[in-house]
């Protein structure tokens, strides 16, 4: 099972865009960001001192439904804390993030959006970075399933996710805060703490707590922490774009 694949700025007409593909969960998302832009017709609804963030999630094969509205709300809440909407040029304007689910197993009505949530989160942060929207920090996210015997499965496939006793999506900021947590299923608090440890190890490579975290580390030795993945993707892109400058120096 390979790591995720991402590319920055695949769309030339948007301010920023990114595509993200996670082979393990089978999700593939293309996202674009336009910011700052004038939002038409709702000038009274715009906040005078802050940017308005809009997120649109478009499923690949079906028209959007209530599930998308819910996930849009989650994304807006998480990204709203990261985007510095009060920087110059942003107040009263909009940051519009459009995410198209290009490939994943079909999400039926009422079924969980959690398996694809990390891909949506990663696509939006990469697209925001490529659009140079001012951010206070970055983040990374992962999805974990706990099966009925209590084993943690990282980035479960859709069949694993369907069979799991509980599903968890956790996002950590680059400074280690728990930015977002979405858990469903049946689990107890100890299980959640184990999931937390493991997710922190996956996202950051280091564990905040010693003893338990070491186990998680050893299992993840070959895989790169996701935080580093986001960083590498962005650095690669900037290197390519400024190759002329770096070479000249």
């Amino acid at each position, binding site marked *: 099972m390979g790591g995720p694949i991402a590319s920055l700025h695949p769309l030339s007409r948007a301010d920023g865009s990114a595509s993200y593909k996670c082979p393990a969960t089978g999700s593939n998302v293309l996202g674009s960001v336009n910011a700052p832009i004038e939002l038409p017709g709702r000038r009274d609804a715009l906040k005078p001192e802050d940017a308005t963030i809009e997120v649109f999630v478009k499923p690949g094969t079906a028209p959007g439904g*209530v599930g998308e*509205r819910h996930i849009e709300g989650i994304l807006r*809440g*998480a990204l709203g804390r990261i985007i510095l909407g009060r920087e110059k040029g942003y107040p009263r304007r909009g940051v519009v993030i459009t995410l198209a689910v290009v490939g994943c197993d079909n999400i039926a009505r009422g079924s969980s959006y959690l398996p694809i949530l990390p891909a949506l989160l990663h696509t939006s942060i990469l697209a925001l970075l490529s659009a140079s929207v001012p951010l206070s920090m970055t983040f990374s996210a992962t999805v974990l399933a706990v099966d009925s015997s209590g084993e943690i499965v990282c980035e479960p496939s859709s069949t694993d996710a369907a069979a799991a006793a509980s599903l968890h999506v956790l996002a950590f*900021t680059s*400074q280690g805060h*728990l930015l977002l947590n979405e858990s469903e299923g049946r689990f107890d608090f100890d299980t959640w703490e184990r999931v937390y440890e493991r997710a922190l190890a996956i996202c950051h490579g280091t564990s905040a707590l010693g003893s338990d975290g070491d186990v998680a580390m050893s299992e993840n030795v070959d895989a790169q922490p996701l935080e580093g993945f986001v960083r590498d993707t962005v650095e690669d892109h900037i290197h390519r774009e400024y190759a002329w400058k770096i070479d000249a120096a």
Partner: protein
Amino acid sequence: MASSATAPTAPPALSLPPSQFARLQPHAYLLAHLSPPASSQQPSIRANGRAPSQFRITSANTGSLTHTNGSAVVRLGDTTAVCGIKAEILHTEDIASWSVSHASSPSAPNKRRKLTNPTEKPGEDRQDGSSQAEDDDDNSYIEDFSLLVPNLSLSTGCAPGFIPGAPPSAHAQSLSHQILSLLHSSRLVRSEDLQIWYQRPNLGPEELERHNEDEQMDVDSAQDGSGGVASEVREIKAFWVLYIDIMIISLAGNPFDVAWTAVLAALRDTKLPRAWWDADNEAVVCSDLVSEARKLSLRGLPVSSSFGVFEADAASGWRAVIVPDAEEERKIAESDRKGIQRRWVLADPDGYEEGLAQERVCLVVDKVQQNGKIVIVKLEKNGGFAVDRKQMKELVETSVRRWQDINQILKEC
């Protein structure tokens, strides 16, 4: 909301009634309540008079709508929800995928069963005695055929700003989805309650009713191929579909808790008439005897509690300050005990507080009847950095206390 006696905020020089102060400076108003000056000897209390972890007074009333199969009115402070459940019959012949996947072989529907069985721990106690294989069976019927259809409407007049004739807002849609996915993930309703069977006349009709173990054996034997006749005996002919309509008639914050409690109370109230397939008429027939109608047997009682995080520093968005990383954050939390508190986790935020709290936590917990174990069914946290592991643990404890209260309220209604 708060009387002037509890507002130490308005200095005598500036005579501003508290209600106006609350409107002009909502953040400062709430902060002043939560952190009264040390000299005033007043406890930290919210503007609405509650302690930070105190929920509003909750009341529930069931069965008030007579034309529904089950209904409930739940009131949490000034937020009120009405939930009505209407059961309708869905014939299996109307389900397009039914004949392909299910009718041909009764044991086929579950790919999931095969997946989960090898990993199942023999000694593990599942929630209430039913075997795991059956649970998964349940889940797939209810999810695949959409047997539960919740719809939440934030109707006109429940709060200012809801215009008549507008399409359902994103908020209402999001709440509908949350309720649907919680119904699915908590597996509250058993699909055997929703199944309408056809029993060949050679078996006694009394076996129509309760069939936990029997059915399991039937299916198993059919799987083995030894009971060719047995597999022919019973057949699902139709399902009950539960249309769960929730109407928020007054919205003053925290709609999800109220809506979910209303759903829970209404489901507990729901009675389905006895129904069976009549081979002669080729139709589903319901008994009109009230005594024969049965209640749903729900799995547990997942209770939802929501929290909002109120940050002391209103200017944190304006002023560029160093956001301490998670490690430093923990140290700060330690020193909180001694010095000034920087944030409060407010249980059951009302509409006023919701506007001031960016970070939300929603916890749904259940207590297993047999062993008293706490099970978390849903844990959502979004919109901020404040709630970490330690705070989460405290919130789970608060939610468990809340579970006791709601359990009591629902029992009494």
